[in-house]
């Protein structure tokens, strides 16, 4: 029985459901012809939501392109998130970031379009936290494909040598685009690379929210107490593939049996069953959460659709800081 409080577990569950329903909604919007680059989080809800649940409100997130779990987990209102994805002026980046979600108040520091560009940036946020003698932590996500970028090496070395309060989470979902990582990556376990930086590397079941929470909490505590970074590798799977075009196994690069196997490890279902098994929640309580979330996402859709687009003047603003 994990020493995680009921409130936290229910928050994790409801955010995972929120993410799942949001993800489904984005798929429908894409099908209806609205252009959103959807890197679906389906199948990867556990780690993103659980790890962000282990943060304090003032902690930072340096996100990456896979899905929206880090945004929802950090407390972003789906209305604002969806508005941004649709390019509306009510979005968190005033309709100029699109999938590159950022939010100053939530300390979501900006999702790059360039793989791994944010890893040294995360090290620098960590350096700044140390120099300002603050107590915050940075949670930095990236994928198995990005783990081969030079910037990962440079950024992890910097964070390690500075003992910066950064927790790296690599979500290893076995593929980058349509290439299996066995063709591209020199190690089976990316966590092994932590050794090269003299930092701890941990492997977790990326579909197990409780494991994700516990591993993240430990690494976050370690970072906060000045002991430096940790690399957590979460083994998981993208059920819907790379983007919306890949939902139904584009090009047959991954066998249907493989997808079916991973469907059985559905992280949302897994947590739901676990919560009932340890009698932390009843089916009825969880159904209520599911139902409320569906309504919330319907409202988010309505809000985003009714929101105005930014004006041309707004779009051309903010290239420079005038102050």
């Amino acid at each position: 029985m994990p020493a995680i409080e009921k409130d936290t577990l229910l928050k994790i569950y409801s955010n995972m459901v929120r993410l799942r329903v949001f993800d489904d909604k984005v798929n429908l919007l894409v099908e209806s012809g609205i252009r959103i680059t959807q890197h679906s989080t389906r199948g990867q809800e556990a780690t993103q939501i659980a790890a962000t649940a282990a943060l304090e409100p003032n902690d930072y997130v340096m996100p990456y392109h896979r899905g929206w779990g880090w945004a929802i987990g950090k407390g972003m209102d789906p209305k604002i998130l969806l508005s941004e994805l649709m390019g509306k002026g009510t979005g968190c980046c005033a309709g100029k970031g699109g999938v590159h979600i950022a939010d100053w108040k939530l300390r979501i520091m900006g999702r790059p379009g360039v793989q791994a560009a944010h890893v040294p940036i995360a090290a620098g946020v960590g350096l700044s936290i140390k120099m300002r003698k603050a107590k915050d932590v940075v949670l930095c996500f990236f994928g198995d494909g990005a783990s081969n970028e030079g910037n990962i090496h440079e950024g992890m070395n910097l964070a390690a040598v500075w003992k910066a309060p950064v927790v790296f989470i690599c979500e290893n979902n076995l593929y980058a685009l349509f290439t299996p990582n066995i063709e591209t990556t020199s190690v089976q376990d990316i966590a092994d690379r932590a050794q090269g930086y003299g930092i701890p590397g941990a492997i977790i079941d990326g579909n197990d929210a409780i494991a994700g929470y516990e591993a993240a909490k430990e690494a976050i505590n370690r970072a906060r107490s000045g002991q430096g970074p940790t690399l957590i590798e979460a083994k998981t799977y993208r059920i819907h593939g790379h983007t919306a075009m890949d939902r139904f196994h584009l090009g047959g690069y991954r066998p249907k049996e493989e997808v079916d196997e991973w469907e059985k490890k559905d992280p949302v279902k897994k947590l739901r069953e676990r919560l009932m098994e340890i009698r932390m929640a009843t089916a009825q309580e969880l159904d209520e959460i599911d139902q409320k979330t569906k309504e919330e996402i319907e409202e988010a859709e309505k809000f985003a659709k009714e929101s105005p687009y930014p004006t041309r003047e707004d779009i051309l603003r903010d290239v420079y800081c005038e102050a």
Partner: protein
Amino acid sequence: MAAREMTYAEALREALREEMARDERVIIMGEDVKINVWTVTRDLHKEFGDRVINCPLSESGFSGAGVGAALTGMRPVVEIMYHDFTLYAADSIANQAAKYRYMCGGGDFKVPIVFRVAGGGSSGGSGCHHGQSLEATFIHFPGLKVIFPSNPYDAKGLLKTAIRDNNPVVFFEHKLCYPIKGAVPAGDYTVPIGKAEVKREGKDVTIVSYAYILHKALKAADQLAEEGIEAEVIDLRTLRPVDTECILKSVQKTSKLVTAEEGTKMGGVGAEIAAIVAEEGLQYLDAPIKRVAAAEWIIASSAYADQMGIPQVEDIARAVKELF
């Protein structure tokens, strides 16, 4: 305040020292910044301790880390040892620093960082990996400001302005300028970004230049004066935003334009200046525009040959005379 004679390198160091004393958010990052081959950051750690950070060889990494620190309350001055190595850091500078604020929707997101790009400028056989002038590469990016001073006074004043600016600034330096001496006031003063300076007045032709080759342009102007041609020489000082007004005003007076730079011609700074004048001041011209720039070559790694493709005083003078 009293002015002293000091070198360009010393003036830069003084700007850093004063800004670090004035604002504790200012930090220095880069390779070997405590001893420092250029001497610009030398020994500042003795005064400012941990705020001077020797970084690993990882131009992309520590430039990106500078962006992260800038986003969250610091004001990093990041040294990249040679112009050539900015290409390793190009993503951190041009894709991240330049675009961060905009992509995040403005507001509280800002990136007050200075990339001091040291070295540059071919000399002594250092060749094409330690001698390029790559400033033109970075004038292309909205979101950045780009500076390239020619003398100690401007070096100090512009570096201070750059450090106080809330935007990413790429601050180019030229290794042949480091030993150049000039009068520099003690204490605080700034030089505005985006303002060129007329270094020599003349009525017959405008020479637009900057950085080290500006000094060659001034020598060419002296030679031309002996032959009866009075050249007006403009030091751009800032390459983005460029001081269009100063250039157009001069061309309106002289009716002739020559640009002089050390980088390559195609897509160079001179190309941009020529285009601005063609677009906004063609009516003032009575002759074609001449661009003096590096040969279409790779800088030879040879002390004997490395100036062969770099424009010299005579090249500038010749280009001017071709217009008469």
